[in-house]
């Protein structure tokens, strides 16, 4: 029963993919109505199954493996197609199916009337299948199916409006940049197999202690390369902002709530290896903190509502890696969950804004929208407060836990980076809120005319997500207070650090001081935005003029894309062209050269032409002939006669070379 239900979780969306996919391929035999019902219905069914599975795991948190069949095997390698159900995968299951379901429902309204409606739901369901395989797999290779599967769906959905050149380019970029990470991940898989002789998590982690520090570091770093690609960290984050070319529900589901967090899940899943590799862990922490701050600074000046959110996602993912880096694995997953709530909420409400403005995404053409779309405004406000870290909202709990852990464990520099990033976050999110909803309306006349609140099918998921963004943090505090909440107790069997890195006691007051600091940061960021965009609306332009260099740097996103283009993309293409030239000029040129060399001796060509055209049979005969003749000569068994054979072969070769001449002269 348990096994069957577990298998049903990814199977439901898979069946919907098959049905909707065939419907598209066979020319739309049924209506959009049925297509979307299959779409969200299958995810709901998965959610129900996942809920059942989680309920059964609550009582007995021991990991359970469900093997479906033997996938790749032979020699000493066996890889099963199997699932692992433990507290970590349970949390991920609920997030993926739960948030996924809400976004599917929202999409029914948002995508209404789009040309590729059924195709959209087929891709979204395929994404659900891949994501579920990713979090449920019981070994690295099933994870990797999901890992590249979500990448494929991301590709397909970024390129959903494939006749837009920018969308097509963004799709290719996302896939190729991700593949760089995937190559690192593959190397990690090979390393794991070479060290453990298996790819099953349970076997690997049970033997993790036998790893040498070098091997552990190598595996951890290679895995992290994969995570950096998938979770858009420095230096491979550039694909994510471009990924905003996809429809907004896609940005919410794939590029905010679930897929991009896969790297965090993977690092936490492998924490047994990371614990053995402090250097790698430090790398994770530093990259995470640096990304958090770096992306947040870019977010300060962006003007596209979705791009601001995209950079904020990159930044928040940085927080999660920062948490991993300081050993706060449970906090990383906690932030993953709360982030899924409020970031999905923010993206979907941004979608609602875009919907209301008939496609407008530039915040310079918004403003004063709160009256026209009050519900959207309300939920967006909640989302902003949650991500900025206003007290008692979900983001406050999880972000505070990460920063607090960093501080109490002596990572003061990482804490400082994180705190600065948190301040920037509070500022740019409030800025986004003000520019979109408050102040004077800068909406185009036409668009203002059609301003409307979104339909209920879109608002209902928004309200539910808003509720989760408010109270979602409580799972981390009730009943035992911070780090003793239900969430942490549930995860403890999976994520407890094997080697103790106990934080120093900073006195009973320290946690409260840190909490207060986090709060001050959030309120400070908000106040600064309030000052700039409400009290003195002329200030931003003045500051931009005053700090022209810095402003240009941020506005152009540090010119990272341009640098990559010049240093990687273009050189590789140039290398390709050069190889192509070498291939025709030199490699093939050698062949052609032989032919030209013989251009003088035309006389033999007729003979050779006959010889070749009827050559197959002749050669066979000749082969027999040659063989028997040589054999007769060699019955003495003299090895020296090899030379004779070689000469015979050479004679034949010369004949053939003459033929090249024929090619030159005859054609």
């Amino acid at each position, binding site marked *: 029963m348990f096994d069957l239900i577990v298998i049903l979780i990814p199977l439901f969306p898979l069946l919907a993919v098959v049905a909707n996919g065939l419907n598209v391929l066979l020319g739309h035999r049924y209506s959009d109505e049925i297509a979307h019902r299959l779409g969200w219905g299958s995810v709901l069914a998965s959610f129900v199954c996942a809920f059942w599975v989680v309920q059964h795991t609550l009582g007995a948190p021991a990991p359970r493996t469900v093997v479906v069949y033997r996938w790749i095997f032979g020699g000493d390698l066996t890889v099963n197609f199997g699932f692992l159900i433990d507290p970590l995968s349970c949390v991920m299951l609920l997030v993926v199916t739960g948030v996924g379901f809400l976004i599917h429902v929202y999409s029914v309204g948002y995508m209404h009337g789009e040309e590729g409606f059924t195709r959209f739901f087929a891709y979204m369901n395929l994404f659900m299948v891949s994501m579920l395989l990713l979090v449920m797999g019981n070994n690295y290779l099933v994870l990797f199916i999901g890992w590249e599967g979500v990448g494929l769906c991301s590709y397909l959905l970024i390129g959903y409006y494939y006749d837009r050149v920018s969308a097509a380019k963004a799709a290719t970029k996302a896939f190729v940049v991700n593949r760089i990470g995937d190559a690192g991940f593959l190397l990690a898989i090979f390393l794991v197999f070479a060290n453990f002789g298996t790819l099953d998590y349970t076997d690997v982690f049970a033997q993790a202690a036998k790893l040498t520090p070098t091997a552990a570091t190598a595996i951890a770093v290679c895995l992290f390369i994969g995570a950096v690609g998938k979770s858009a960290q420095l230096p491979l984050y550039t694909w994510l902002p471009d990924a905003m070319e996809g429809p907004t529900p896609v940005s919410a589901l794939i590029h905010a709530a679930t897929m991009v967090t896969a790297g965090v899940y993977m690092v936490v899943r492998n924490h047994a290896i990371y614990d053995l590799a402090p250097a790698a862990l430090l790398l994770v922490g530093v990259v995470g903190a640096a990304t958090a701050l770096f992306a947040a600074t870019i977010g300060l000046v962006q003007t596209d509502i979705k791009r601001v959110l995209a950079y904020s996602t990159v930044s928040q993912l940085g927080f999660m890696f920062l948490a991993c880096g300081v050993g706060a694995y449970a906090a990383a997953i906690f932030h993953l969950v709360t982030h899924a709530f409020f970031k999905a909420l923010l993206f979907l409400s941004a979608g609602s804004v875009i919907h209301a403005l008939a496609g407008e995404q530039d915040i310079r053409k918004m403003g004063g929208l709160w009256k026209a779309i009050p519900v959207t405004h309300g939920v967006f406000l909640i989302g902003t407060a949650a991500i900025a870290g206003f007290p008692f909202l979900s983001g406050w709990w999880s972000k505070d836990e990460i920063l607090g852990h960093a501080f109490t464990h002596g990572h003061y520099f990482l804490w400082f980076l994180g705190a600065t990033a948190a301040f920037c976050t509070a500022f740019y999110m409030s800025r986004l809120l003000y520019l979109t909803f408050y102040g004077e309306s800068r909406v185009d006349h036409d668009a203002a005319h059609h301003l409307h609140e979104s339909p209920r099918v879109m608002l209902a998921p928004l309200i539910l997500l808003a509720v989760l963004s408010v109270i979602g943090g409580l799972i981390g505090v009730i009943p035992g207070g911070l780090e003793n909440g239900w969430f942490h107790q549930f995860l403890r069997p999976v994520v407890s650090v094997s080697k103790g890195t106990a934080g120093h006691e900073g006195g009973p007051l320290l946690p409260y001081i840190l909490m207060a600091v986090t709060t001050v940061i959030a309120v400070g960021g908000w106040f600064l935005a309030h000052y700039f965009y409400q009290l003195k609306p002329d200030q931003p332009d003045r500051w931009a003029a005053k700090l022209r260099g810095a402003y240009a740097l941020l506005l152009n996103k540090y010119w990272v894309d341009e640098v990559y283009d010049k240093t990687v993309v273009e050189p590789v293409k140039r290398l390709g062209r050069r190889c192509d030239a070498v291939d025709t000029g030199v490699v093939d040129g050698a062949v052609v050269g032989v032919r030209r060399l013989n251009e003088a001796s035309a006389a033999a060509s007729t003979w050779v032409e006959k010889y070749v055209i009827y050559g197959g049979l002749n050669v066979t005969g000749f082969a027999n002939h040659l063989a028997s003749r040589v054999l007769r000569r060699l019955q003495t068994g003299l090895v020296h006669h090899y030379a004779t054979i070689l000469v015979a072969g050479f004679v034949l070769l010369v004949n*053939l070379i003459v033929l090249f001449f024929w090619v030159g002269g005859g054609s």
Partner: protein
Amino acid sequence: MILNEVAAGQQIGFPILTVLTFLPFLGAVVIWLFQKDEDLILKSALAVAGLEFFISAVLFWHFTPNSAHIQFAERASWIPAIGIGYHLGVDGISVLFIPLTAFLLVLIMVYSWDAEKTLLKPYLMALLALEGTMIGVFASLDLILFFVFWELMLIPGYFLIKLWGPGADRQYAALKYVLYTLTGSVLMLVGIVLLNLNFHTAAVASHTEPLYSFDLVDLLTVPVPPEQQALIFFLLFFGFAFKAPVFPFHTWLPTALVEGPIVMSVLLAGVKLGTYGFIRFSLPLLPEASRSWMWVMAALGLAAIIYGALIALVQTDFRRLLAFSSISHLGFVMLGLFALNFQGLQGSLLQMINLGFSTAGLFFMVGFLYTRTGSADLAAYGGLAHRVPLLATFVLILGLASIGLPGTNGFVGEFLILVGAFRAHWVLAAVGVLGVILGAAYFLWYYERAFFGPAAASALKPLQDLQPREWGIAVALGVMILWIGLYPAPFLNMINGSVQALADRLEQGSRVQAVRGSEPAATAQRAVR
């Protein structure tokens, strides 16, 4: 290394491999007799190909999995004086190639239904003859018999490129193809003779009969002295490397694939004869030389992976892109073969089959595009996802398989190859994964430019989407790709036994197990038919 045999008579009751080898030739003759009606000619060619595929499916079905034995063996004497015999049989190394070839031929016949109008009769006869020789190559265990089929293949191949190629330079392409292969096979023939002589020396020394043999099973029992192995290894190498083609002997391939007809491209890219030669003959017969030259061979593989992918990146002609991607894929196969361990061999063998679906399948797709636009160049494409959505979908599926997306067959092969390479030395895998990145880059970049983009610019000429017969081809390929990708067990079971035996031999060297005929059952089965 002792390969036991199970006779066809015992296993299935009729000489199935002889039937498979000669049925296409018979079919060609039968078609020759239908003088007039084109429709009838097409139907009978398809019927022959279909029957052939059915029999190959029977072979697949009756093959005993997880066994290193040679199965469905048939023996007859041919030229006993110098040890040439008619010896057919399949084991895990060769068995999958036969249904693959037959499968592709069925698709080719279906494809030709719409695509080929000129000189239909000789065209179909050439295709059937080509099928017969290819199957003969895979079924032969006698090296001379193998060589005969290997060379015979050139005749229909030559004419197919020369007469039915769409390119302006098809004459040149055909000749280049033939000369390249022929040059290699001359050297290979010398190598084969040397193997025979070595056998002879040993037979004389130990006073055993027969004195001469070209039979793989016999040759395997006599280790080649290590000092001679390198010479023979390289003689064979040229034969196989030119055919495969292995970088840097590949330049005939892009020419042939661009100038030749699609059906020939499908077979050249889909049926990996050259690399089959390595795993069938070079590795088991010359394990010491294979080991000492492993680094050179693996380096050639790596070079091909990177070099082919880089060139593919900048192509605008889809066929040329596929030609270089094919060279890159062959680099993977070489890398796996010369990792000389179980996973490498297993992955390479599986990958050779996989490419018969993915790369060959992409050539069919190019054919579909070609019949619609009259071009394989980017200039004629753009916005194709709008114009021919179904075709675009299948190109994407096949392309993803070719770049090794998990869930498709390409991943299983590529993963095993890289695991094998990693176990040989981590550097091999570390360089090999670059091919994984470049593969995604060249395919998706091309796909972006050809299939995505504004439909408006390309809405000049409305194009028909896939027609029922084309549908059939695309679906058949898609099913195989997902089958092997998600549930490769039946295929792995068939090859694992022989791969294990080969891996053991490469591990232990040729001197171990050099005593012949240890199992009485095996010798009893030798007198077949």
